[in-house]
């Protein structure tokens, strides 16, 4: 049974991620190549908070429509936008307004005119059935108290034959209860 309700979780995540300060390049350098980071806005790089590199495994093609669930400050959104080109588009969704603003700002700085930012939660995505070719998400599913619901929503918005590339944290063993009950551990 979860230690936190949906609303408590969302409030904690909004506060934690909305207040995250740029923190250098340590996270981005651990996840992305120098060539991939080249040309991206420095703040987008410094606010990389993902845990993997789902875009690398998404096999994106020119002209595709990609949904980035929990876009954060937009680093994966920008990499996807670069991969699908001007003929494609990237729908970036996040429940934290401060992060959405950052994604929009970083897309503008990068000249990525194929990015659309949308506020929403992963358990009720604000998109039509079968409307996207690819879903990517990076370090976001673990923040949901209803993971199966969020995955079902990602399936719903994919077109038949569409694909998903999802980076997340998983446990090999349960964490000690003292940690699992700590609000900060929601992000782990």
């Amino acid at each position, binding site marked *: 049974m979860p230690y936190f309700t949906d609303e408590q979780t969302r409030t904690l995540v909004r506060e*934690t*991620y909305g207040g*995250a*300060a*740029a*923190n250098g390049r*340590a*996270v981005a350098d*651990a996840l992305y190549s120098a060539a991939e980071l080249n040309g991206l806005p420095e703040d987008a790089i410094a606010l990389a*908070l993902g*845990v*993997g*590199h*789902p875009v*690398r*495994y*998404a096999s994106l093609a020119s002209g595709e429509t990609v949904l980035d669930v929990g876009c954060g400050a937009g680093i994966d959104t920008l990499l996807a936008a670069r991969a699908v080109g001007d003929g494609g588009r990237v729908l970036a969704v996040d429940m934290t307004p401060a992060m959405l603003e950052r994604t929009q700002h970083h897309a503008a700085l990068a000249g990525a005119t194929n990015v659309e930012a949308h506020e929403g939660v992963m358990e009720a995505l604000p998109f039509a059935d079968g409307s996207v070719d690819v879903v990517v998400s990076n370090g976001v*599913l673990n923040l949901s108290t209803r*993971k*199966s619901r969020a*995955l*079902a929503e990602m*399936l719903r918005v*994919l*077109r*038949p*034959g*569409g*694909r*998903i*590339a*999802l*980076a*997340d*944290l*998983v*446990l*090999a*063993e349960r*964490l*000690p209860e*003292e*940690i699992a009950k*700590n609000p*900060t*551990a929601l*992000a*782990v």
Partner: protein
Amino acid sequence: MLIKKLGNVGFVDAVTVARAAFGLDALARYPLFAAEFLDFVRAVVPVDRHDTLVYSVVVTAHKGDR
């Protein structure tokens, strides 16, 4: 478990394409965790799990054609 969840909701061909240990040193890179929290985790978690606290995975899957 994540692969199983993907299958349970209807995804097909779910596979783990990347997996890496994610320990306390990795957590410390993120501006989400205060030093006090990291110290707390370091104190509570057995030393032999500090480098493998959790695992970072990337999974891929498809939606069926129909």
